[in-house]
């Protein structure tokens, strides 16, 4: 569904992304993990059009969207949440979702009334109770859920979530996991950036690992967990080679 090909981004002297390629498939949750500063959020910005890559391409379905503007990508079914929250702070939670639904309705993405869809989504992510609260005063966890409902209101084919569970309790995280799986069941391609490894392991069918802007591993959660380079990247130590027969997943 979403295809990133050889994307590179450089900020002054820092190579934020270096020839990164991966794919996000419809109907599944794909994880993008890596230590802080690995380039995950930069990748989200590249995919959604907030950051122009120095090299490489981004495709959505069959279409090359590398040069499209953010709103055009949204019209094609790309939606995201932000790690550093980007809510419409002086609008209420309900208005945040409603405005996205209205934009999508203007494009006849979904046939339903924006108000109905908004009510439904608020209930679905469990924030109906704060519908009338201006988002600036919501606690982080709840605000992330508003962002998620807002992203869903655009009727996405691909949903990019940037650390959605930070600020949530473990019970809430588990519920979030169930929601993500259900969204995938509905056919949405979900790309998840997340530090909560329990959540990642539980919901992702495929993982891509970034470190210092490079993709160092790709594979199923189990394969990636046992990968030597991943352990080094996360723990910062050289790990003894894995036992023979336990083939680590590597990117070419």
């Amino acid at each position, binding site marked *: 569904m979403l295809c990133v090909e050889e994307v590179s981004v450089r900020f002054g002297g820092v190579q934020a992304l270096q020839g990164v390629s991966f794919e996000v498939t419809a109907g599944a949750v794909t994880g993008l993990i890596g230590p802080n500063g690995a380039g995950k959020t930069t990748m989200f910005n590249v995919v959604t*059009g*907030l950051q122009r890559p120095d090299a490489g391409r981004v495709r959505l379905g069959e279409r090359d969207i590398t040069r499209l503007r*953010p*709103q055009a*990508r*949204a*019209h094609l079914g*790309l*939606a*995201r949440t*932000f790690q*550093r929250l*980007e*809510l*419409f*702070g*002086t*609008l209420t939670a309900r*208005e*945040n979702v*409603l*405005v*996205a639904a*209205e*934009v*999508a309705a203007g494009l006849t993405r979904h046939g339903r009334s*924006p108000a109905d*869809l908004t009510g*439904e989504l608020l*209930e*679905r*992510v*469990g*924030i109906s*109770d*704060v519908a009338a*609260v*201006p988002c*600036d*005063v*919501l*606690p982080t*966890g*709840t605000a992330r*859920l508003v*962002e998620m409902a*807002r*992203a*869903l*209101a*655009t*009727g996405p084919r691909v949903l990019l979530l940037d650390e959605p569970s930070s600020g949530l309790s473990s019970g809430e995280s*588990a*519920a*979030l996991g*169930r*929601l993500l799986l*259900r*969204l995938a069941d*509905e056919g949405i391609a979900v790309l998840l950036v997340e530090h909560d490894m329990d959540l990642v392991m539980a919901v992702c069918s495929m993982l891509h690992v970034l470190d210092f802007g490079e993709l160092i591993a790709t594979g199923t959660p189990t394969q990636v967990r046992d990968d030597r380079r991943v352990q080094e990247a996360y723990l910062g130590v050289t790990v003894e080679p894995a036992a023979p027969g336990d083939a680590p997943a590597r990117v070419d």
Partner: protein
Amino acid sequence: MIVVVDSCRELPKCTVAQRAVGHDQAIAPDGGHRQSMDTFLPLTVVGVVAGCIYALTAAGLVVTYTTSGIFNFAHGAIGMVSAFAFWDLSQHHHWPSGLAFAAVVLVVAPALGLLIERLLMRRIESSSLDTSLTVTVGLLVLLIGIAKMVWDPSQPRFVPQFFPTHSVSVAGVVISWHQLTVVAAAIAVAIALRLFLYSTRPGIATRAVVDDRELAALTGAAPVRFSQLGWALGAMLAALAGVLLAPLVTLDINTLTLIVINGYAAAMVGRLKNLPLTFVGGVALGLLESYAVGYLPVGNLLGQIKPIIPMVFLFVALLVLPQARLRGRSTVIRPPRVAGLRESLVTAAAFLAVAAVLAVTLSAGTIATVSLAVCFGLVMLSLVLLTGYGGQVSLCQLTFAGIGAFAMAKVGDGGSVLGLLAAVGLAGAVGALIALPALRLRGLYLALSTLAFAYSMDYVFFQNPKVFGNSLSLSIKRLHVGGLALTNGRAYFFFLCAVFALVAVGVLAVRRSTLGRRLVAMGDSPAAAATVGMSLTRLKLLVFTLSAALAGLGGALLGGVQGLVGPADFPLLSSILLLLLAVVFGIRTTTGMLFAGLVLAYGPVIQTHVHGSLRDIVSLGVGLGAVGIGRNPNGTFGGNTPLQRLRDRRAPDLPAVVAVPAPMGPVEGAGRAVR
């Protein structure tokens, strides 16, 4: 009519070069190409000197902006106060000029900078642009007010040049030691800043703070310390520029304050962070101006653009800036509750009832002033849409009002419905035209480009006899529909109130509509707005057009109050004041605009009744009110009263209470599809 800057009309030559050319090198203004070789070197000298002063000013702006993130509109006012302080010490108290120079630049100015940082700026460092703009513009107004109280503007003052009797002759061009001093000071400052920023520990730490404030704080740097340093240093550079400039121009409060606006252009060449480029920009601007004065013919269109060269320079520098990444706002604002249709209709009806009583009871003179206030309020309602909701800061709303008044006067008989429609249409069209090149600009850059537009329009449109006639005024009648004419001042007042009420109800209706939600979304987070699929370009164009049209309506009706309109009714600084008052009275509210309009209309009235040194009490009040915004970002009627502040303190608990009951609960049983 204008509270603070009533005499800025008398400044046809607000540029250093234009004044200096006349003073020193004595070049025939219509030099023409025949004399080009004779005049080239002297013009170059004048240009370089002017450019060095621009560069010094701009460097101060850049230093303050990079360390604190605040663009200091009061930078020129600090330079102005310093120049007057220098006059006071050296001429009034007869200090030796070297001592006076040292006292002002090394003691008074940095102390002023530190005071400003401590009292005002520390609170607003991460707040929205309209807040920081209001506070710094408020500071500008306040400093002008103080200066007028201390140094009576009607008394002429002169500051002699440094080393007045010394000059050198290079290749036949006489260069005064003062001019050499200016150039030497600029070079010294450039070298000193470079050494400081790249070779000293505090300097390197300063650059770290500039790059990433939070990260620098994490590594042990104290951003507050660097803000203090930035404000002290910025004020010193402003003072240095002011003191060096003072002998080259007439010592006038408004001139000195305004000249510095030209320095904005130089700062923009350096993209507000690159000091070497800033110096290059300053000198380039000075030279450009000087050659234009020397070589451009007088009288025709090319001659007319001379005074606006710095602004054209600024506009171009803004347009070639690389596009900043979309980012959100970082402060928490408690928006005022949005009134429903019923509530706003009831309020409007009550307002009209009061207006009806006032229309028959007030004296004729009061009616005229209050009518003016309602018209200003109407123009300010355009800011509610544009700035309050859409987050786009405009410093040229009064320019649109002037265009509206012009159309009203020229179309039909000067008071027809057709004229009113033309006013709305022309102002809207110009608004759209202005918005087009400015669409890719955001925040401060957009605000500065509107400032450049207003400044330029002042010269090529409002001051132009071809537009406003030789008397620089046009007559406007009060609106008449069919046989019904609103010639009676009381009837016209009530009519204005009805229009205001109607528009206010309309603005609130927009806020409750999808357009309003999209505007607020764009203002709150352009990044998120784009990623949910909104076309910010189209939305910005729309809101600019709407708000310019609305301002045009206000201007056309304003003409009817006075019968005559002229350039003096729409000066640049009043546009800034308009925004400032709108923010003070709550730029997201409609009722606040009425009070803001009253202050704007009553300012000059109070000024004529108060005598002596307290004459500028209004500008003091306005300035204080504006700087007070730093403490109360939602404005007087914005809802953030002390009572609400108490409630706000509890606010974080509120959602926690609500968020608890099994947030994801419904998910489990839900089979609802989100397509």
